[in-house]
């Protein structure tokens, strides 16, 4: 793997009082990669996502995206540079319809200056129509066509997860951070998700995936990074990570490791 690093994290540290949620972490996501981040509950995975997307500020360290340092930018500036994410604790615009949620995700790409908005001249109509078409397509892509006009808050939990993914995709990200996308999905639904992520990979969207569903991670990912207590305890291709005693001890368990051994084949 020699592709240029898209995301480059150096010595990142975040402390809450005495507790280090992320500690001296180095991490690279290559252009076009589909990598996973795993680790026990409370290992610091979501905290890391929050740092990358700018919702919290690090105590130390640097974050580079596509060759530029982004760790002092606001969340929206980072989004502008091609970063999108989903939330482990769903954060949809619950009162607005599913399609409008996706349209908000498209915010950065819908054209139309204030003047055009006020006069309805120029690109405005065309841009809006194109956005709506694109949003419909995305909803279809994640399997939510039937609920386009339902308020996001009225969707079932699993559907809300899908909607989060659609909203994040709407931003046409270079790097997509997915925080437990398969939570709340049954094995069959997870398999469908896997296909979906593979299609995204084919579209050259780089992804960093936090997930506890090992059947998904082991089959899908190029590289897995394992965190525990905010520190990296292992890194490498699925097979190596699965066999790593430290990972088995802290995360997979002997049974788990055995269980997933057969899957990758």
């Amino acid at each position, binding site marked *: 793997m020699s592709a240029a690093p898209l995301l480059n994290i150096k010595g990142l540290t975040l402390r*809450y009082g005495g507790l280090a949620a992320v500690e001296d972490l180095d991490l690279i996501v290559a252009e076009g990669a589909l990598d996973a981040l*795993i*680790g*026990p*509950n*409370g*290992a610091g*995975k*979501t*905290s890391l996502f929050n740092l990358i997307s700018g919702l919290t500020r690090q105590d130390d360290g640097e974050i580079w995206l596509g060759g530029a340092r982004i760790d002092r930018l606001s969340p929206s500036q980072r989004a502008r540079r091609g970063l999108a994410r989903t939330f*482990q*604790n*769903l954060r949809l615009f619950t009162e607005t319809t599913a399609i409008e949620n996706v349209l908000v995700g498209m915010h950065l790409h819908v054209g139309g200056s204030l003047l055009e908005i006020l006069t309805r001249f120029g690109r405005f109509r065309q841009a809006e129509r194109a956005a709506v078409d694109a949003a419909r397509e995305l909803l279809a892509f994640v399997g939510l066509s039937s609920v386009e006009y339902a308020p996001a808050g*009225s*969707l*079932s*939990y*699993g*559907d809300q997860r*899908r909607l989060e993914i659609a909203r994040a995709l709407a931003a046409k990200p270079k790097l997509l951070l997915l925080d*437990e996308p398969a*939570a*709340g*999905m*049954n*094995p*069959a*639904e*997870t*398999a469908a998700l896997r296909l979906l992520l593979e299609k995204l990979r084919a579209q050259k969207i780089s992804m960093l995936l936090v997930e*506890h569903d*090992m*059947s998904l991670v082991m089959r899908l990912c190029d590289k897995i990074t394992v965190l525990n207590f905010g520190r990296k305890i292992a890194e490498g291709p699925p097979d190596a990570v699965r066999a790593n005693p430290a990972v088995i001890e*802290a*995360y*997979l*368990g002997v*049974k*788990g490791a055995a269980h997933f051994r057969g899957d990758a084949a």
Partner: protein
Amino acid sequence: MTDIMLEARGLTIGYGGKLVVRDVDLTVRRGEIACLIGANGAGKTTILRGLSGLLKLRAGSVRLNGEEIANRSAHAIAARGMAHAPEGRQIFAAMSVADNLRAGAYLAPSAAEIGRRRDAALTRFPRLKERLTQQAGLLSGGEQQMLAIARALMADPKLLLLDEPSMGLAPLMVEEIFSILAALKSEGRTILLVEQNANAALALSDQAYVIEAGRISLEGPARDLIDHDGVSAAYLGG
């Protein structure tokens, strides 16, 4: 005392003008684990919310331990021995972990009893013990999930409703949860489980129901459903 803990007949529930659950019959026997499986949006959560009194029933009857509880308020149902660990965890975010647990034992008869239950819960979830004074809203997702389950256990329920208890938990912890459920069962408690980890859930359960678009499409002993071709294809990823 019958050997049926929970019996729902003709359960019909909706939101606004839309009926989401129609004419569902469920039976959970004392000391057994029953599970509901189904696709996203099938209505599993809605059924649990209807049973525990969070949603009004449009029609149907629910008997808990032989007593009719349909459309009683949620707190009254809780007082009759049902605990519900709801979807989305619904922990008390600004309260400490310890206070969340105390709230779970709101109906406990004595301080000593609360202490006993708390010790039991914390042995099951050592991570929570480390975080006792932290505000619950600041826990990680999985830690919050543990808290939600522990809080439900604090009620010392006769019947426990769990909505996707393994969600967001690391593999080791998922194993732990399923062994806790097995232990609870062996203590004689009754459990109604909604679970996406259908393989593990069916392996543990006595009785299972498959929900499709708000109706029960299939029911029977859990063992039989594991081997059922349709179930295996649709829900077990097999």
